[in-house]
């Protein structure tokens, strides 16, 4: 029998690794993969919690999670693709047109 904390910890580690990918990698696709890992860490936690409480809600959560993150991912992917198509943007560094300009002098 796996203690809840252990499985949650695995989920937390996955979540953290996903975050690490988002934070450390620059390629947009990697970022999306990082997000996937984060979501999966969460899903693991959900299922683990469901196991702990012995209810269906954990799994329901995981299923919703899959459906909804997929929807989100798809839209994000198409945007990444658009970015590549229009600007040949692969990395986050290629998308820095929107930013604070240098403040002009004002009273």
């Amino acid at each position, binding site marked *: 029998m796996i203690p809840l904390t252990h499985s949650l910890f695995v989920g937390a580690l996955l979540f953290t690794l996903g975050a690490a990918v988002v934070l450390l990698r620059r390629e947009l696709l990697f970022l999306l993969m990082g997000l996937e890992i984060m979501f999966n860490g969460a899903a693991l936690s959900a299922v683990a919690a469901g196991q702990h409480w012995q209810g269906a809600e954990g799994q329901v959560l995981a299923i919703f999670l899959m459906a909804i993150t997929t929807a989100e991912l798809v839209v994000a992917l198409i945007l990444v693709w658009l970015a590549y198509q229009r600007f040949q943007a692969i990395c986050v560094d290629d998308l820095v047109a929107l930013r*604070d300009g240098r403040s002009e002098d004002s009273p």
Partner: protein
Amino acid sequence: MSTWLWLIPGSPFVGALTIALLGGRLPAARLPWFACAAAGISALTVAAAWLGGAAQEPLRQTLYIWLAVDGWQPSVGFTLDRLALVMVTVVSGVGFLIHVYSVAFMDKEAEQRRYYFYMNLFLAGMLVLVLADNLLLLYFGWEMVGLCSFALIGFWYRDPVKAAAGRKAFTVTRIGDTALAIAIFLLFVQFGTLSFDVLFPLGEGDWEGATAVALLILVGALGKSAQLPLQVWLPDAMAGPSPVSALIHAATMVTAGVYLIARTHPLFELAPGVQWTVAAIGVLTIVYGASCALAQHDIKRVLAYSTVSQIGYMFLALGCGAYALALFHLATHACFKALLFLSAGTLIHSAGGEHHIGRLGELNAGSRTVQLCFLVGAASLAAVPFFTAGFYSKDAILTAAWVAPVGGLLWLFAALGALLTGVYIFRVYLTVFHRSAEPLLRPRGRLPTPIAVPLLLLAALSLSVGFLEFPEGSGGPHTWSTWLESELDLAKHPEHHTTRVLQALSALMAVAGIALAFPLVRRERAGKSLPWQSFLQTGWRFDALYARLFVQPYHRTASALARWVEQGLIEAGLNGLTRGFWVMAAGLRRGVEFGSVERGLTFLVVGLQRGHAMLSATQNGLLSRYAVSVTTGTLALLGFWLFWPWGG
């Protein structure tokens, strides 16, 4: 009669208002006469008051309550008692005469409207000052005359020097005024009222604050009356037209200080130290003024210093408790000094604005009448015994000084002053009217009536007023002091024979002074080219010796005084004060306004801008950075809650 009391100040006030508002509509030629009429009505009312019994019983009139706060209700109200009656008579009488004189004197001036507006206003203010039944109203008049003085000194404002003189006068007297104001506040706080009627009976108790208040009032009086050390403005005030000098800076306004002290004398009697200070300042000023007068070449400046010196006598009298005598000298001085100023003004006028006595002499500007008038005035000033008013008033003061504490010293100084008075005024007289050379100008014809009449009237008064009060022990009547006795205490007198000696000595002083003037003038006229030996050769050895031993050192001392004390110490002091203000203000502006305050602001603004710039730099468009920020926030919130003491 009481119901018409308001007319005394009211008539010139209404005159002033009319000139201000409707002056443009009046024909220019009528304007002076209109102003004269306003002054005349005032003088007539005073005359009517004499007849109407003011000499016996004080007249009172309250016009309205000025302010009413917390049960305190200072009114706009007048009291015409004997003290006030004297003042009112002098002010309205001399004032009227000078108005008349101005008609001719100022007839070529462009801005007569302004002139007469201020003259009338001044008269009104001065009359309010002396008629006021409470200190607050007195202060009102006090300030009003100061203002008019300022405006009239600077009448020829296009000349910056003259405009500056006006400002100087105003500023310096304002120092005195503020002291007076503080005194008023202290009195108010102590007694809850400022009305003379209520105040002074109260003031006769034992009150510790009396000294402070008396001192403050003294400072106020010193400022207005141009006594040491606040005398500096008066000589400069001669920048104004001569009638102004005569009216304001000789006859009336400068004596307001004397009036004030006489009015508040119960207070001074509670503070004997201060009273003695009054006397001491008086004598010092006498000598100071006289010595300075000795060294002047500008005729009006001589007269100005002379005024300073003469008011010193009045202060001496006040300091000795001889209030009636102070007032007596005030009256006589008003006559002869006005006379002198008006004569001098006529001279200057006809000499085309020349002030230098030497050149006036060369120009031979004065006609016979003027010379005569000036002589009468000078004699009265120098206190030529027996037939001049100045003699009677000054002599009595000298006698009274003897019995004051340290009276011998006071007397000595005063007598010295008397001597010098003779010297300097006759130096002027001689220089201007007695020449050896042929005159450059022919004397003009007859004087215009508006000038001649006041001159002659004043001359007559300068000779006659003295008979109101004969010296102690002379057997003559003491009309003046007896009459005023009910309001002002009588002066104490020394023993009979001492009095006699003193009287003799003072008479001698006056004559000696005049006598000393002759060699002085002669020496002067010779200028530097005249060697000392020639004096000796012509047989005026005594004079020469005297001159060498006495006059010349005095001359030197006087000019040194003029130079060092006047311009050096005091002028520098005043300048220093002004400069000090300026530097302080500039320093404040630099240090605080643009420094701390503005810098604090700038610091804040720059800080905010830095903050903005730093934060703005984080908005660099980099996706990863944004994610980092989100993570940081999460960590911070979680950590804040998990690891902070108050965390769950």
